[in-house]
């Protein structure tokens, strides 16, 4: 079983990297980009039967910093 953990900055947290990417896109001539937020994707390969509580605990204890980030777990067959 695989789980993809999407880690994103919380709303309201300044994202200098997203802003630099946004600026670079504009520099390449892409108009119409209103905002860019950069995040992180972590793919876990898990033993079958790994429970949701454990995955949540992994996210809260290490994969995301709950002061600045949110996470979303996407299970992949």
């Amino acid at each position, binding site marked *: 079983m695989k789980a993809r953990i999407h880690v994103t900055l919380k709303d309201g*947290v*300044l994202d*200098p*990297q997203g802003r*630099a990417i946004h600026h670079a896109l504009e520099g390449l001539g892409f108009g119409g980009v209103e905002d860019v937020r950069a995040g992180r994707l972590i793919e876990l390969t898990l033993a079958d039967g790994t429970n949701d509580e454990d995955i949540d605990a992994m996210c809260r*204890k*290490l*994969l995301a*910093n709950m*002061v*600045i980030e949110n996470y979303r777990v996407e299970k992949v067959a």
Partner: protein
Amino acid sequence: MKSAVITFPGSNCDRDLAVAIERVTGHAPIRLWHGEQSLPEGLDLIGVPGGFSYGDYLRSGAMAARSPVIGAVVEAAERGVAVLGICNGFQILTEAGLLPGALMRNAGIRFVCRTVGLKVENASSRFTSLYEAGETIRIPVAHHDGNYFADDATLDRIEGEGQVAFRYAEPVNGSARDIAGVLNAKGNVLGMMPHPERVVESQHGHTDGARMFEGLARSVLERA
């Protein structure tokens, strides 16, 4: 003063910190590897140095904050032992939950490496007692992830409790309310992005960092 300086894989200011503590206080720190499960008895100060522990993988300080020795550091901090985290050490202490907030990528994206002015906000902690409140000192910074963030409620709380130890006197990295150094609620844990260990001898060009280590040594004598 009995102190220890921890080395993580990728620390690069551990020796500087140990030398500064020894030169200023006359007592050489014990050097500890991050894999230690326990700390020597009777420590007065634990130094968590700057560098790029674990190559800044995942987030700056995130991996080091989960290393074996940090469990012992958290216990020691709860007992009241002084813990000083500098630069990457500050990032490690926030990741370990010993200090509020988080250190994010500098607002200007670039690595900042220069000497900056710091305003002393709290001159009553055991780290800062030899500074004057409101005084501006000069200490070098060298970091990519020094942009201090905490939500407004947390910022209001730490400001109200006197937990802001230092504030930048000039724009440096986009930190919330220009915060450069933060104390825990009890005042025995300090994290700061600037490097006091780099300015302790006249040959360094400034000696503004020396008073931090002198103050720590004096606080140990006063509490004995």
